[in-house]
C-alpha cells in the first residue's frame, strides 16, 4: 500500500554506480592530497603562532598581553568563513592580493592559532612554580627558562588538546573551497556539476574524511605517550 512511496519518480537518481565511482576516485584522491597539505600547512602555522600568542599573553608588558588577548578573543568569536572571505576578498581593497591558497592558509592558520594558544596556555600554567624558582636559583634568563624548562614540560599535557584541533582543522579545510582551493569538497562539487551525479562524489569524500579522522585520535594518544617517555616523564 506504500508502493507509491518507493516509486522511481521520487528517487530518480538513487542508484549507486560503482563504475562511475572508480572513474572519479583518482581525482578525489588527488584532492585528498591538497586537503592534507592545507590541513598540515595551516596546522604548522597555528602551532607556531599559537605558542607565540600564548607566550605573549604571559609577558610582563601589560599592553602586549591586552592586545594579544583581545585579538585572540576576537578571532575565536567570529566565524572562520568570514575570516577567509575577509582576507581573500577585502584584502585586495587594501592592496593585499593573495592567492586562494595563501589566503586560506593565513586564515585557517590564524584562526586555529588562537584556539591553540589557549591549549598552550593551559600547558604552560600546569608547570609548577618551583621550576621557575629553580631556574632563578641557577640564574637562568626568562628566555632560557621557557626554552629549556617550561615549554618542554608544557607540551606533553597539551598534546591531547593540540591533537583535537589537528582533527578540527582537517575537517574545516572544506571551507577553503569557497575561495577556490582545490581540496576535496571543491573537487566533489566540480565532479557533480560536470555530470549531475553528486551521490558518489560526496559519499566518497565522507568516507575519505572518516578514514583519515578515525585513526588520528589513536595516533595522537600514541604520540603523547612517545613524547612523555622521551622526556622521562
Amino acid at each position, binding site marked *: 500500500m506504500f508502493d507509491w512511496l518507493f516509486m522511481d519518480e521520487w528517487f530518480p537518481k538513487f542508484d549507486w554506480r560503482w563504475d562511475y565511482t572508480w572513474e572519479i576516485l583518482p581525482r578525489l584522491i588527488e584532492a585528498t592530497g591538497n586537503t592534507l597539505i592545507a590541513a598540515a600547512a595551516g596546522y604548522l602555522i597555528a602551532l607556531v603562532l599559537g605558542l607565540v600568542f600564548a607566550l605573549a599573553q604571559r609577558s610582563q608588558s601589560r599592553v602586549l598581553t591586552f592586545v594579544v588577548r583581545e585579538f585572540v578573543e576576537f578571532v575565536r568569536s567570529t566565524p572562520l568563513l568570514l575570516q577567509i572571505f575577509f582576507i581573500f576578498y577585502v584584502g585586495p581593497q587594501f592592496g593585499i592580493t593573495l592567492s586562494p591558497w595563501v589566503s586560506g592558509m593565513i586564515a585557517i592558520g590564524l584562526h586555529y592559532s588562537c584556539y591553540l594558544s589557549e591549549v598552550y596556555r593551559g600547558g604552560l600554567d600546569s608547570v*609548577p612554580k*618551583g*621550576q621557575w*624558582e*629553580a631556574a*632563578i*636559583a*641557577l*640564574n*637562568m*634568563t626568562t628566555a*632560557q627558562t621557557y626554552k*629549556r*624548562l617550561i615549554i*618542554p*614540560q608544557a607540551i606533553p599535557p597539551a598534546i591531547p588538546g593540540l591533537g583535537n584541533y589537528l582533527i578540527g582543522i582537517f575537517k574545516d579545510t572544506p571551507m577553503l573551497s569557497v575561495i577556490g582551493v582545490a581540496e576535496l569538497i571543491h573537487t566533489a562539487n566540480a565532479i557533480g556539476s560536470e555530470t549531475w551525479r553528486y551521490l558518489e562524489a560526496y559519499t566518497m569524500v565522507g568516507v575519505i574524511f572518516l578514514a583519515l579522522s578515525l585513526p588520528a585520535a589513536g595516533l595522537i594518544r600514541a604520540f603523547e605517550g612517545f613524547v612523555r617517555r622521551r*622526556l*622521562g*616523564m
Partner: protein
Amino acid sequence: MEDLSGFPLEIVGENSPMVSFKKVRKSYGSLVVLDDLDLDVAAGEMVSVIGPSGSGKTTVLRMLMTLEKINGGVIYVDGKPLTHMDKGGKLLLANDKHLRTRRSDIGMCFQHFNLFPHMTAIQNCMEGPVQVLGLSKAEARDRGEELLELVGMIDKKDQHPSRLSGGQQQRVAIARALAMRPKVMLFDEVTSALDPEVIGEVTNVIRKLVSEHNLTMLMVTHQMGFARDISDRVCFFYGGKIEEQGPPAELFGNPKRERTQQFLSAVKEAV
C-alpha cells in the same frame, strides 16, 4: 620612595660579612613577614634558622635568592648590594640585569627539590653550567659527575627524577646547585618533604659540605639535632625578627628568651 642614603654602597674590610641583611623589610599587604631584619653571616659560616611557621625564616632565604621583592632595607652579598644597585652614588632597586650578575654567588636547595623532570640527574647538573656559565658540555659533564660522586648519586646519573626517591632527588638537587660554584648555599627545609629513613642521606651530604668545603651556608630546618650538630650559629626567628641567636650549645642548652624556651620545649615534646 624609601630613603636609602644611610645605607653604605659597599661593605669593605677584612672581616666584612659574606651576607648582610640591613633593616630588611618584607610584607604581603598588611602582613609583615620580615620586620627591619639585621643579620650578618660571615664567610664560611654555617647558620641555621629555626622558628615556628610564619616566623619569616623561609622568607629570609627566598629574599636572598631574589625570589621575593624587597620592601625596605638592603641585602649585601660579598660586600656589594644585591637587592639594589649603585647609580651615581645612590642605591636604586635592582633591575633584572643587576640581579643576574649578583645572584650568581648564591645557590639554593628547595623543600620539594624542584628538579627538572624531563632531564636526567646529570642533565639537571649540566643545565646551569652550560646555559648560564657557558661551559662546554664535556666540562659541565665532568663537573656534574664529580658532584654526583660527592653526593653519592653517580650510579644514578642517567635516571630521570621520577625514578629517584625523595632523598636521592634532594641529593641531585644539591649537586645541581653546587655545579654553579656558589659562594653561599641556601637550604630551605631540605629534609621536610622526606621520609624519615632517608633524611640521613641528605643530612650526611650537608655535613660533608660543612666539613670539607668552605661554603657559607644558611639553612632553614626543623631538625633541631642536626642544626645543633653542624651549625656555627643558630638564629631563632619569631614574628619576622631574630628573637635570639647564638652558638648551638648555648641556644639549645640555655635559651634566654621565654619564646625560645617555649618553642624548644614544644619541639621536644613533638619528637
